[in-house]
């Protein structure tokens, strides 16, 4: 039987491990602050400078320039959408084969999860840089970069989503004599569908944001328009582009939000 003494020993062990955890967290924070030269003073001084730059150079935005970027905005939208579809198509088989409960073989599951992790490890900016070198400046490079890097997120989300389903429902199909495809289509898919829709639309949201950044390395769309204006010191026009990116992100989030509610 456990005694009060055991209880005290048990409590002391917990206290000790907490002490270790907090020491590690604080030491790491101290090291990181020192290493990055982060100081409250420099930070506050910087804020002043930033505000001056924003007030004098960026504002007011040259709104009359907006129409000339409509094409770029549409490019960004299309890039994001095509990129999402590409990620979805490539991620589905990886997700199904990666999930322990639907894979055809354990080794294939490891291989599939490994591939996805590998892709996830590289930021999409890296893919974009390579692809711009391959395809040249323009939306194609950005689209493919988003398509590939999306696998890193969707492949994992899909596999996790499939692993989280109720296997009793799947067992019912299997017991009735269903083939692997039938088990997937009738037992797995209905349960996985909400996760699938949520994550795929979330990836579309992310792509709109990514598109703006990827433009900086020449991968087309509004991001490329933005960096062009900045390089030519047309800051007020750049502000217009930033506003457009902002509005588009909100718009897409709004629409995907409605879609999600309608479908689920």
């Amino acid at each position, binding site marked *: 039987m456990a005694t009060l003494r055991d209880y005290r020993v048990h409590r002391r062990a917990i206290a000790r491990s907490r002490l270790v955890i907090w020491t590690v967290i604080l030491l790491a924070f101290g090291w990181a602050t020192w290493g990055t030269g982060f100081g409250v003073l420099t930070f506050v001084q910087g804020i002043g400078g930033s505000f001056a730059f924003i007030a004098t150079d960026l504002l007011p935005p040259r709104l009359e320039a907006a129409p000339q970027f409509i094409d770029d905005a549409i490019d960004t939208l299309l890039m994001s959408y095509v990129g999402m579809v590409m990620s979805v198509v490539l991620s589905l088989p990886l997700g199904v084969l990666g999930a322990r409960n639907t894979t055809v073989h354990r080794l294939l599951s490891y291989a599939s999860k490994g591939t996805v992790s590998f892709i996830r490890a590289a930021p999409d900016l890296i893919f974009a840089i390579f692809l711009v070198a391959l395809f040249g400046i323009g939306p194609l490079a950005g689209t493919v970069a988003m398509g590939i890097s999306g696998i890193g997120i969707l492949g994992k989300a899909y596999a996790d989503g499939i692993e989280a389903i*109720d296997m*009793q*429902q799947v*067992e*019912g*199909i*299997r*017991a*009735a*004599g*269903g*083939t*692997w*495809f*039938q088990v*997937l*289509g*009738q*037992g797995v898919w*209905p*349960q996985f*569908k909400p996760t699938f829709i949520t994550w795929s639309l979330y990836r579309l949201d992310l792509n709109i944001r990514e598109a703006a950044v990827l433009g900086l390395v020449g991968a087309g769309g509004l991001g490329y328009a933005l960096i062009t204006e900045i390089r030519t010191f047309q800051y007020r026009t750049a502000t217009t582009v930033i506003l457009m990116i902002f509005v588009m992100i909100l718009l897409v989030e709004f629409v995907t939000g409605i879609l999600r509610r309608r479908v689920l």
Partner: protein
Amino acid sequence: MALDPMLVVRGLSKQYPDGTKALTGIDLEVPRGQLVAVIGLSGAGKSTLLRCINRLVEPTSGQVVVNGRDVTRASRRELRLIRREIGMVFQHFNLVDRLPVVRNALHGRLGYVGSLRGALGMFPQADVERALDVLDQLGLGQQAFKRCADLSGGQKQRVGIARALMQEAKLILADEPIASLDPWSAETIMKTLRDVAVREGITTVVNLHQVEFAKEFADRVVGLREGVIYCDLPAESLDDATIQELYRGRVPEPVSQEY
């Protein structure tokens, strides 16, 4: 040929990877049209026995023959063909909750339609008509297009039986079909299983917790204890002494009165 038994189990043993010996040397023969109740404590191996019959659980050794076909040696393809003749009814129903009732009943046809068509949920019109008919017979006519998630436990279990009937099952395995139901629904489900067995001549093996239900509805009662068959008799010869002996060992230990 019609007189050979529907189900033959010979020397069936199952040991789980964690070392648990769930079944040891089970021999069982079930003639066509018989309704057998398998009773015993939780952990006695009832569920494992049922799942070894259609190989949802892979037996360690022994042989299972269903309708003259060796289940234990069947290839994956053969196994699917055997499984489509074995309807299974589960304690937790194992229906796809997000799909409508009629589709869940149609899942019983999966073994008969093409793989891709089945995966997409496209069934021949004749199957759909029969599914609606079967659901109607089981008193689920009004529920056909609701999601399974919206049904009561008793209704769900009837959908489970509808699925088995759609399979044109020759053998129904029911794993604790009434353990999650209120007594009133339990009664209905047992009656339904009984009716179906009698009307369609379907051989049925039912795992049960409740001895009373076993005595009332089964032709024959098989008692499992610690993975071996402890008794095997006609339902009417099951007496209290046998039941007590079968369930021995799980009587609560006397509480010590000393301080």
